[in-house]
């Protein structure tokens, strides 16, 4: 199921002033896989995501998506890239003055100007329901939703253009376990039907075990390992052992085996 790399990052360096976040970091994401990205808080997972999607200009390094080098694209190419990916930001980043449905319609309106209103509202509604929200959240404003509902609304917006590449930053943080499991299901389902490739930052060990084909571990400013989770467990790195074989890690693994 996993094929050629569609994202390759080589020799990435990011820093804020004196503070170096990434140094000589390499990572690749293969066609059709769900890649989990883990690392301690503040290890630079969100910054990595932001550099891949072009929101953070790296000091050094090369980033290729769909074979194109991101910072060497023309404006037109960049637009074309942007419509092929969807991003779910860590805090949702919904537009607070628009309703949930209007939020979902924003990318559609931006890229496809000739879709009529009726179809737009139908699309918004089924995307919202597909993302696991009741249809009556469509006319609500983000400030009227709970944190978990906002995450789902943001997912609906990320999926608005039927992207082939989906970036998720801690999508299940703040969801109840049932909701989180449903979210995992949804991602799996979408992956198989829409042929998605997913770049998934998460701390949720259940999610890692349940849906990730490979897991990349960020520590010491680098990706120290990238492999299927079973292989990671074999590795002898203290942080990895602590992470996956700590009390929570074992519980998740047992659950998965059961």
């Amino acid at each position, binding site marked *: 199921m996993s094929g050629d790399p569609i994202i390759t990052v080589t020799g990435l360096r990011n820093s804020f002033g004196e503070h170096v976040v990434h140094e000589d970091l390499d990572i690749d994401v293969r066609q059709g896989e769900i890649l989990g990205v883990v690392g301690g808080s503040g290890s630079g997972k969100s910054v990595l995501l932001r550099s891949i999607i072009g929101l953070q200009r790296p000091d050094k390094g090369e980033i290729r998506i769909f074979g194109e080098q991101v910072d060497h694209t023309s404006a037109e190419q960049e637009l074309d890239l942007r*419509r092929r990916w969807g991003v779910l930001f860590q805090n949702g980043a919904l537009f*607070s*003055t628009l*309703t949930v*449905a*209007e939020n979902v*319609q924003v990318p*559609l309106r931006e*890229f*496809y100007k*000739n*879709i*009529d209103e009726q*179809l737009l*509202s*139908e*699309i*918004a*509604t*089924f*995307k*919202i*329901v*597909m993302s696991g929200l*009741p*249809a*009556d959240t*469509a*006319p*609500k*404003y*983000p*400030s009227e939703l709970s944190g978990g509902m906002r995450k789902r609304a943001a997912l609906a917006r990320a*999926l608005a*253009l*039927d992207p082939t590449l989906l970036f998720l930053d801690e999508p299940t943080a703040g969801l109840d376990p049932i909701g989180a499991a449903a979210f995992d299901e949804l991602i799996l*389902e979408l992956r*198989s*039907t*829409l*042929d998605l490739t997913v770049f998934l930052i998460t701390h949720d060990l259940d999610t890692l075990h349940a849906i990730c084909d490979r897991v990349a571990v960020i520590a010491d400013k680098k990706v120290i390992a990238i492999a299927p989770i079973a292989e990671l467990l074999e590795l002898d790195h203290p942080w990895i052992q602590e992470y996956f074989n700590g009390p929570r890690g074992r519980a998740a693994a047992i659950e998965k085996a059961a």
Partner: protein
Amino acid sequence: MSFEADFTEQDDAGEHILRFTGRLTVARLGNVPRRLEELSSPPGKADVSAVDRVDTVGAWLLHKLNRDHGATIIGASDDAQRLIKQVSIADDPAKTRPDADGPIARMLRGIGRGTLEAGSSLLGLLAFFGGLLIATGQVIANPRRFRLHALVERFESVGVSALGIIGLMSFLIGIVIAQQGAVQLRQFGAEIFTINLIGRITLRELGVLMTAIMVAGRSGSAFAAQIGSMKLAEEVDAMRTIGIPPMEALVLPRVLATTLLMPLLGFYASFIMIVGGGLLCWVGLDIPPTTYIQRLREVVPLTDLWVGLIKAPVFGFIIGLTGCFQGMQVQGNNEQVGLKTTAAVVQAIFLVIVLDAFFAVFFSSIGWG
């Protein structure tokens, strides 16, 4: 080959069949959705075996054919079938905006809401004033709770950093008053009265009033925006739960800063206006500075200075209070921060001018005219 979605209609053994080609994806739909709305007769079957790719939007269109006309979808790949199934599960029509009123109802509702808001804003401001008094009382009873550091920080941003712009503004206004006054008074050969005009109007009115407007624009708006964004980020709630009363930590230092600084800034502004006026008198009217100062001392009563200095702290208080009050009213979304910031400035300037009118009547009735 073309990827654009397209379809043809065929009648086959009494059955109306739609044959789709191309890609049924949102990027390639073109006019297919509209044509599907305007079908000549309801289709019995939709054949998608020649379709290259289907996404959720394409699946939705197929699902609607099935839902609205009972058409069976034939020739769909496994993926397409799964997608159609998924969107059909998600089919739950809903509004995309909250219900809107008709025009008349909306107008009536607007008037009603406006009236209520104006009333409740005024009442709210009073209640906020009361809350501030209570907080002040508590701080006086327990002086260690007083946040000197926060106050000094505000002195810097409200006072020291405003000196440049207020000085420039005042200097120019001084020149303008002197120039305009001289032009009018020259017609009566009474140019020397320009000095009366400058001295009295700056100390009594313009110095403090213009400063109030500048402080409302600079600091009142900043207060509303700062406190408003803190409210949105739930920082104000976090303060409350930690046991820090926002009145004490956020509002009191700010209101105190504007209240204490307005007399100083007002005096400074009046002084610079007089300097500006004096300069024009010297250059334009050939009145030497010594004469200018001497005449000022003769014609400007000390009460004029008091009038300005008594009004200034009241104006400062109003500016600080409305700024903080509007900031605390922010809730919901970011647009509110902008709206409340505007409201803070408008309300502060309005109240300052209304109060100024009251002061004018009051001072002239006690003989300080």
